[in-house]
């Protein structure tokens, strides 16, 4: 069992928890993720390690409530426990001094982009960041992102805060104006990463994305997470999660994310009707 030490609501549907997992914290690095189970009957879901504290032995996880498991997680408070926290899984981001880099975070993707931007900054890069969300309520960590960026652009789809635009618009303008970033990192919903990749491709700007395919074990034993990159089947959990965005078969990823759409709806309805039925007394 893994204790939740701290919880914060970043936005109405975006929550942050700090959970005690000393072994995982000891090894965690930017770009990696954990697989968690909320309770004994719960599903295994992957969440990115948004931050970690080796001294305290804690991990920071940020999640958006999109379905049953994340909503159930959203009911947890400091002092509650998670049934499992497994990790750190996947390869860490390859951090070096590349020169100028751009970090793009969309929605809940702002959480995982932050430790990457921070490490890139520490490695001596000039970090330009673009963060965006559908509206002001979904935006978080602007201050943290500012603290590790040389430049920061904030966008919202509806213009309720920052510039009214999708993250791809300022990105395209920068590239069109002749900026030649050595690398671009983009993390967010699959559809956003797809359009970032389409935006950067004509400029030949190397673009790294962190794929969020459906997972079960997170250790390479099931193949649920398989995607196609450069025409080859890859397992996101062990070979990723980061890949070259220009090589990803985005339509396949988007289709595979929808496999359980009907069941996800049923699970959520069942939960809303019956509440949590596990034996953990939560």
């Amino acid at each position: 069992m893994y204790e939740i030490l701290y919880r914060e609501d970043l936005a109405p549907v975006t929550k942050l928890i700090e959970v005690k997992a000393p072994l995982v914290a000891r090894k965690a690095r930017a770009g990696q993720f954990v697989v968690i189970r909320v309770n004994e009957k719960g599903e295994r879901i992957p969440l990115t390690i948004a931050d970690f504290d080796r001294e305290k032995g804690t991990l920071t996880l940020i999640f958006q409530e999109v379905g049953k498991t994340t909503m159930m997680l959203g009911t947890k408070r400091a002092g509650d426990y998670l049934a499992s926290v497994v990790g750190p899984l996947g390869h860490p981001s390859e951090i070096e001094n590349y020169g100028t880099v751009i970090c793009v975070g969309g929605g809940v993707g702002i959480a995982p982009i932050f430790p990457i931007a921070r490490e890139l900054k520490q490695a001596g890069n000039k970090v330009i960041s673009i963060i965006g969300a559908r509206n002001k309520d979904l935006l978080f960590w602007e201050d943290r992102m500012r603290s590790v960026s040389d430049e920061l652009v904030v966008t919202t789809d509806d213009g309720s805060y920052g510039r009214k635009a999708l993250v791809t618009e300022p990105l395209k303008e920068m590239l069109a104006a002749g900026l030649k970033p050595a690398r671009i990192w983009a993390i967010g919903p699959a559809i956003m990463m797809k359009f970032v990749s389409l935006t950067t491709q004509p400029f030949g700007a190397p673009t790294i994305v962190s794929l969020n395919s459906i997972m079960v074990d997170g250790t390479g034993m099931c193949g649920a997470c398989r995607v196609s990159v450069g025409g080859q089947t890859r397992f996101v959990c062990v070979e990723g999660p980061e890949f070259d965005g220009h090589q990803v078969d985005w339509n396949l990823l988007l289709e595979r994310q929808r496999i359980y759409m009907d069941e996800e709806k049923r699970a959520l309805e069942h939960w809303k009707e019956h509440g949590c039925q596990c034996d953990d007394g939560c």
Partner: protein
Amino acid sequence: MPREQIERQEMPAQDPQERIHNFYEVALGYPEEIAKLEAQRCLQCKKPRCVEGCPVEVPIPEFIAALRDGDLAGSIRVMKSKNNLPAICGRVCPQETQCEAMCVLGKKGQPVAIGRLERFIADWERKTGVQKPDIAPPTGKKVAVIGAGPAGLTAAGDLARYGHKVTIYEALHAPGGVLIYGIPEFRLPKDVVRAEVDYVLSLGVDLVLDCVVGKTLTLEDLFADGYEAIFLGTGAGLPMFMNIPGENYNGVYSANEFLTRVNLMKAYRFPEYDTPVKIGKRVAVVGAGNVAMDAARSALRLGAEEVSIVYRRSRDEVPARAEEVHHAEEEGILFKFLTNPVEIYGNDKGWVRGMRCIRMALGEPDSSGRPRPVPIPGSEFDMEVDNVIMALGTRPNPMVFTDAQGIERTRHGTIVGDPITGRTTRPRVWAGGDIVTGAATVISAMGAGKRAAADIDAFLKGVFTEADWHAKKEEVPAAHP
């Protein structure tokens, strides 16, 4: 009744029409009178051939004699001198190719039902309470066992009995390995597995779950933490695909994913349990091993109307246990022999619609000694299906080796390990089970765990040292208390 007139006793089973709608155990086990009757059939051979067929050399005539005479406690004691997990082996060993294949009665008629008797005696013990064995005084030595499958559990249990402090590190959130995530409830109830795990823990073994060695901890970390020996029992859990077009369509599963969702995550009880699985009306399972039978029969129980096993060789080469094939046939699983998929096709939303197959003929024997299947040109045909489950075999997961130095592996990804002692090419690291042999059997994994535990014990007691590691193979030290 004279012994010669007693026939091999059938084991009662749930009715096929009923059981295809539930996940309860299919085979129900012998009642006591039937078990004793079956036990009378054994000739008590002076040189029992059956024992030669058992990978761990269970003293078969002795345990059967005690059972026959009503000494059930004595019977289980004899059994456990060689086999820690009889409730499991009695259920899942391929007896027809092992112990029962060698039984002399099988020459003219039907062999003694050794597996069913083994199961009976183990189930009796579970019901009446398990006796704790003697445990040697603590040696103060720490051993780490990686993986809580049959190999790891057996090694851990024996090492604890030798007096060492053992910790098992397991990647998943539940112990048991394939026994928990692969083999379904209707063939191996999970409370049976749980009881065997509890027994091992009752010997003083510690279990750390959710710990992926190679990620959460590395072998080097474990040595730094003071472990003097490490046993690797991480199995062969990596799924294989065919690399044919269309394998990534929605509705195509590896057997590992499908069975993990159903067994470990209990998708058959969705939405009470959160993890879903999606099975349509027509399901094709590719392969014909135990894994394929388990997948096919699970799909049926999840509501599929037509489930086919698609296998490129013929009935004679089917590798699954005879009992599973028999049960699958009773349940109405269709078998398409000499058939191989060449492509999976889908609809515009990315879902499987069907599978194109080609018919095969048997040619010359291949490296495995079985006739090589060769495609018959122009014989392609289409099957309409909603799901394809790939049950093609598995390979070892390389994750455990992240920072491991000096552990040699073959090109199939298995560890180069001494078949008797389990020693790897790196001193202080032993390995056994599927990680060494590739996908094999529960009993062979257990046997490997047992032999490695004995060798580890000899090492920790100074019978040999690191300097002797690569020298001429040690004899496995004589039996322990």
